[in-house]
């Protein structure tokens, strides 16, 4: 079992009465890209801040690179790269000064050539002030800043929020480039599942502060299935199938969302229930995620009844 980079034991944080992160037990192995996926307000940012020791957990604890995140020593923090949500940097600094400021904290570790190359690739000059940069450019700068010290663990909090496709692609390329080097891990939270699918090995789904899934992308893709079953006469109201997450009935049809049941199990079940025909719907990651976290059990948002 490879060494775990980040683990948390029943990590919980209450903001006033509402729970932001609820007993998170997480383990992320070294050497993978892990996608933090969750709906808005599911507690992704809070979880990341808790793990980085920026916030004090109400209960439980978390470990980063083997050291408790409340007592992260400067040496360990030096090996962690963190991109804040919204790429917040000091607006009054110019890029050159910001680089000089950051370099003071990473003496030997700082890879100047890489930083210069990235800036040149992004087409940014060192004299530009951060406040004059657009969102995308600021994101590029913070990516360059995060990758330059060649961190062992890179944590990005929603890096691709509101960026155009090209910059997003550069972010993903940057992460992959980091992963290439031996023993590096990247953990990034995102809303664009296309990126997550393209880049991440493992996926962590957080829903309402609770950990819903922590597996490799492939396992997640294989296990979430949607089956459309058509019946000759009336669709049965009660039925029993293992791994049923959610089902929608219409007059003659049943739409089931199954987790983890393999196809021949479905085949047998269809025969026992006497379905006329059934069809496993191919779903991409986004649909799977939506089914998994926000099943439309209450029916569609907008219904068009024929008059």
């Amino acid at each position: 079992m490879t060494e775990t980079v980040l683990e948390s034991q029943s990590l919980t944080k209450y903001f006033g009465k509402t729970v932001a992160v609820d007993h998170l037990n997480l383990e992320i192995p070294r050497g993978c890209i892990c996608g933090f996926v969750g709906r808005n307000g599911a507690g992704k940012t809070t979880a990341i801040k808790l793990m980085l020791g920026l916030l004090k957990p109400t209960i439980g604890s978390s470990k980063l690179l083997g050291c408790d995140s409340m007592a992260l020593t400067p040496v360990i923090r030096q090996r962690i790269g963190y991109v804040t949500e919204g790429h917040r940097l000091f607006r009054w600094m110019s890029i050159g000064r910001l680089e000089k400021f950051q370099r003071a904290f990473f003496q030997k570790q700082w890879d100047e050539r890489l930083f210069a190359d990235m800036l040149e690739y992004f087409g940014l000059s060192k004299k530009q002030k951060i406040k004059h940069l657009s969102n995308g450019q600021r994101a590029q700068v913070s990516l360059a800043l995060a990758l330059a010290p060649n961190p062992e663990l890179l944590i990005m909090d929603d890096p691709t929020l509101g960026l155009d496709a090209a910059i997003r692609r550069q972010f993903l390329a940057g992460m992959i480039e980091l992963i290439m080097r031996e023993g590096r891990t990247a953990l990034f939270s995102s809303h664009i599942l296309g990126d997550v699918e393209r880049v991440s090995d493992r996926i962590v789904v957080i829903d309402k502060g609770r950990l819903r899934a922590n597996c490799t992308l492939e396992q997640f893709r294989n296990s979430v299935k949607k089956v459309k079953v058509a019946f000759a006469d009336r669709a049965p109201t009660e039925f029993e199938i293992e791994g049923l997450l959610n089902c929608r009935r219409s007059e003659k049809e049943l739409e089931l969302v199954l987790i983890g049941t393999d196809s021949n199990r479905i085949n047998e079940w269809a025969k026992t229930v006497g379905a006329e025909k059934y069809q496993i719907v191919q779903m991409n990651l986004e649909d799977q995620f939506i089914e998994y976290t926000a099943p439309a059990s209450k029916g569609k948002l907008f219904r068009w009844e024929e008059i």
Partner: protein
Amino acid sequence: MFDKIRLIDLMGLWVQISPGSDEPVYVQVAEQISEAIARGELSSGDKLPPVRKLAAELVINPNTVARAYSRLEQAGLVVTKTGSGTYVSDPKLRKADAADFNILTERMDTLITRGLNLGLEQQDLIEMFKTRVEKFTKK
């Protein structure tokens, strides 16, 4: 020799990833490479681009590329020599298993249903199929 290397370098360009599609990414990569082999752009003995290069090229995770290669290897289309990379295997060794066949039949069914919907006759369909097959097997 020159064009072959170029070909292989260009290999990355031929594989198009559409993350939003139904199949997982590694399936897409594997499919497109096997199609390229079927089409003959990759003849046996060619060297596939190394995992890291293809990953960097396509901006996808190296593990996915590695998994795609292993899937191709199971299908026997590709053979990996340790240390020097992966090469297209010669056709005799290729073995297909049942899973490939029913994927094939599935694809055929969708083709046929689409054709019938267009109002084509059975005869025309067979005719069309014959011409396409010849195009492939001519070389």
